[in-house]
């Protein structure tokens, strides 16, 4: 039975609303975006700038509608950005300037 207590978005084991949802078993090609985000996360971990646990915490804090709308690595880049901002590795002003510069 699904428990009656509020549940975090990512905590999906047994959640009723997905019980009748088919699984897309087809292969999906990895994109350059996916590969690069994955590599950046690894490097940040190896350099002790951010752990995989911090990555997960950031992913888990994404609001439910966005969590299910974003792709896997779109969640990651959002969590990585969030974590780097929180830890002061980058500042919001730097990020805004970099976004404007494109």
């Amino acid at each position, binding site marked *: 039975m699904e428990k009656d207590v509020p549940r975090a978005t990512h905590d*999906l084991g*047994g959640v009723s609303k997905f019980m009748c*949802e088919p*699984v897309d*078993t087809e292969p999906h090609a*990895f994109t350059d*975006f996916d590969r690069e985000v994955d590599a950046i996360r690894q490097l940040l971990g190896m350099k002790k700038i951010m752990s995989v646990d911090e990555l997960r915490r950031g992913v888990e804090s994404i609001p439910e509608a966005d969590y299910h709308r974003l792709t896997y690595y779109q969640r990651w880049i959002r969590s990585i950005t969030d974590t780097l901002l929180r830890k002061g590795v980058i500042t919001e002003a730097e*990020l805004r300037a970099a976004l404007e510069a494109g």
Partner: protein
Amino acid sequence: MSILETDGDRLLTALRGLLAAKGIATPQEIAERIRITEGGSPAQGARMVAKAWVDPAYRALMLSDGARAAEQLGIPMRGAPPLGVLEDTPELHNLVVCTLCSCYPRAVLGYPPFWFKSAAYRARAVRDPRGLLTEWGTVLPDHVKLRVVDSTADYRWMVLPLQPAGTEGWPEEKLAGIVREGDMIGVTFPAAG
């Protein structure tokens, strides 16, 4: 709108520039990391499975310490989480899921496939696993017990499937050729061909 809601491609471009400028992650380092990561693929895990089918001592090592067994075949495991290997028997079938995120034995299987990361797979595997398996056309005989392993923490798990009938005496390389990604997560069985 929060800056975090910016489109992912734009965030990546901005971060790439900032991390390079700060000397945290250079484009060369990123390219090298991608190259190393792409070395992991289901073919690696398949080599381990095939060796375990023909070599009882290797099977024993693989079941007691998956990472050492992988290293013995030249698969780099440094920095990777411990690897647990789940042995299928005629009475027991194993199925791996990560209900909380998408923990996957990447060192030996490569990037997780799309379905492994999907909400439907993660939700259904622990509650309706036999129904879930039919998505792959996999039907588990009623006398076989199903063990679902929810990969929640520091280990990564792969399945050592049963060697299919009709492959007795095959050389290791040929055996490795019939072992697919899904066979090592437990959604499918290897077949003779």
